[in-house]
């Protein structure tokens, strides 16, 4: 069996904050096209781990390889341009700008890097509106982003991620604070995104995880505790103990 080079892999990735080892020696591989969920109790190091991947924080040791290239020392903005998009756990949008401007900023970045394209008003309009339509926000394009309902702000985060046309989209607890109805349409959206991009999802809502993830990685105390299909994880005794507090 030929080994397929994963889109993202980490080797011995560690990060400590003072005495606290938030992420320890994590070896992780994510093949292209997969929807992967990372679960684990609070403080397990999930957000720190994806922050190391997208470059918001730098590792104490270890490497991150994306698309065959070592990106461990690359600043965050260069990793984004290499194709890693991150949506914030705590909603981080441009509240004072219009919804359209929010996605246009993302589309503009990827258009600037695309040699064939140019960030003309028309191209921005097309790409920006496409991202808004996918997330169902097209009707709010001219509204001030800060005036959107909370659920819509979460969607705008995702729309900005989409407008970057990433190869890997990292979603950090995207359904936090959403209503049941909103969660259903969110699951459908992520499934849709999963057709074009690889998705790495941190999520606490197990229904969402079970509905979306092809594979699940369980983290606990900065380490990877288990990894497998949703069925395997559900049956895993160690996971039940750590995560379900059994």
């Amino acid at each position, binding site marked *: 069996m030929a080994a397929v080079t994963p889109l993202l892999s980490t080797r011995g990735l560690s990060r400590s904050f003072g005495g606290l080892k938030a992420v320890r020696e994590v070896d992780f591989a994510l093949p292209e096209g997969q929807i992967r969920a990372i679960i684990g109790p609070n403080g397990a190091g999930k957000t720190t781990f994806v922050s190391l991947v*997208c470059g*918001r924080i730098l590792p104490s040791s270890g490497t991150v390889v994306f698309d065959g290239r070592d990106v461990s020392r690359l*600043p*965050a*903005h*260069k990793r*984004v*341009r290499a194709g890693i*998009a*991150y949506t*914030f756990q705590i909603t*981080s*949008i*441009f*509240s*004072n*700008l219009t919804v359209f*401007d929010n996605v*246009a*900023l*993302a589309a*503009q*970045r*990827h258009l*600037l*890097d695309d040699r064939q394209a140019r*960030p003309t008003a028309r191209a*921005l309009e097309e790409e920006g509106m496409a991202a808004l339509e996918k997330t169902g926000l097209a009707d709010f394009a001219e509204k001030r982003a800060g005036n959107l309902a909370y659920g819509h702000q979460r969607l705008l985060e995702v729309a*900005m991620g989409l407008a*970057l046309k990433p190869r890997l989209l990292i979603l950090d607890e995207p359904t936090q604070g959403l209503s049941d109805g909103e969660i259903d349409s969110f699951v459908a959206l992520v499934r849709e995104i999963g057709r074009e991009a690889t998705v790495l999802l941190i999520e606490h809502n197990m229904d969402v995880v079970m509905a979306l993830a092809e594979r699940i990685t369980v983290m606990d105390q900065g380490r990877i505790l288990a990894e497998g299909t949703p069925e395997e994880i559900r049956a895993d005794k160690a996971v039940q103990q750590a995560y379900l507090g059994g």
Partner: protein
Amino acid sequence: MTNVKSLWLHAAVILLLFALNFLLPEYHRGIFSRVMVLAVFAMGYNLAFGYTGLLSLGHAMFFAAGLYGAGLTIYHLGWSVWPALGAGLLAGTLLALVVGFLALRTTGVAFMIVTLMFAQVFYLTTLYFTTYTRGEEGLVLPQAMRSLALPGASFSLTDPATRYMAALALLTIVLGLVLILVRSPYGRALIAIRENEERMRMLGYDVFANKLASVVISGLICAAAGAAYAVLFGYVGSGFASIQYSILPLLWVLLGGAATTLGPLIGTLFMFYIIDTASDYTTAYLLVVGLALILLILYFPKGIAGTVRERWLPWLP
């Protein structure tokens, strides 16, 4: 549509200023010439402060770099006006590049302090080289040196009408440049950096490089104002490098409306006339100025153009 409206508005402002050359009495025409040049200074400041959110307390150094770059080359080296203006622009741009590169490692209050310090260094340097600059007393450029060569003719910048038109030409160019800039994708990126720097980084923008570019363009515009001031008004003194001239553009921009294209012009004009009018009646004119500022903050908290945009004309750039 909004694009067309804003273009018409800016064209109308320029046309109005053009017409005022023929309508204003001599005294007021002089004030307007000065205001237009200083408004360009304020526009440069506004790009860094208003649009990019960089509160600098040292922009006097960029204005003064332009002023001295043009003034010293004319006075000591006998350069003619065009190359002297070029020297002024170059001096201001290089200074902005170096200062920006160092100061932008800091943010917030530290950035204010660092820019203030650099400006103080610049100010003290102009005093240190008193042999060449004559310090506070300054240099008066000889009238004969201040003539602008254009294809086919040469104009003396000491003539009030020529001076007014030269100031207006500079204002028009810079206003046009700023208008294009802030409506471009780059301008949108600067505003977004002001709003949420961390998000911009995670959208793949090199925040430092964008800020540096903003400071350099801002410095270039301020230096253009300084260089123009030297050749139009023929006076070059270190007073222009002092802290007062770092605070004034901040005040003009806040008065007129930060992050608006026309705000700096409105603010500068307004401030000049409050002082001018008040000092006709009382020696305690600063009291009147202070009162006017307080009233403005109360009723126009976002500056004149900023509040107009917020309440009535959302399409204002």
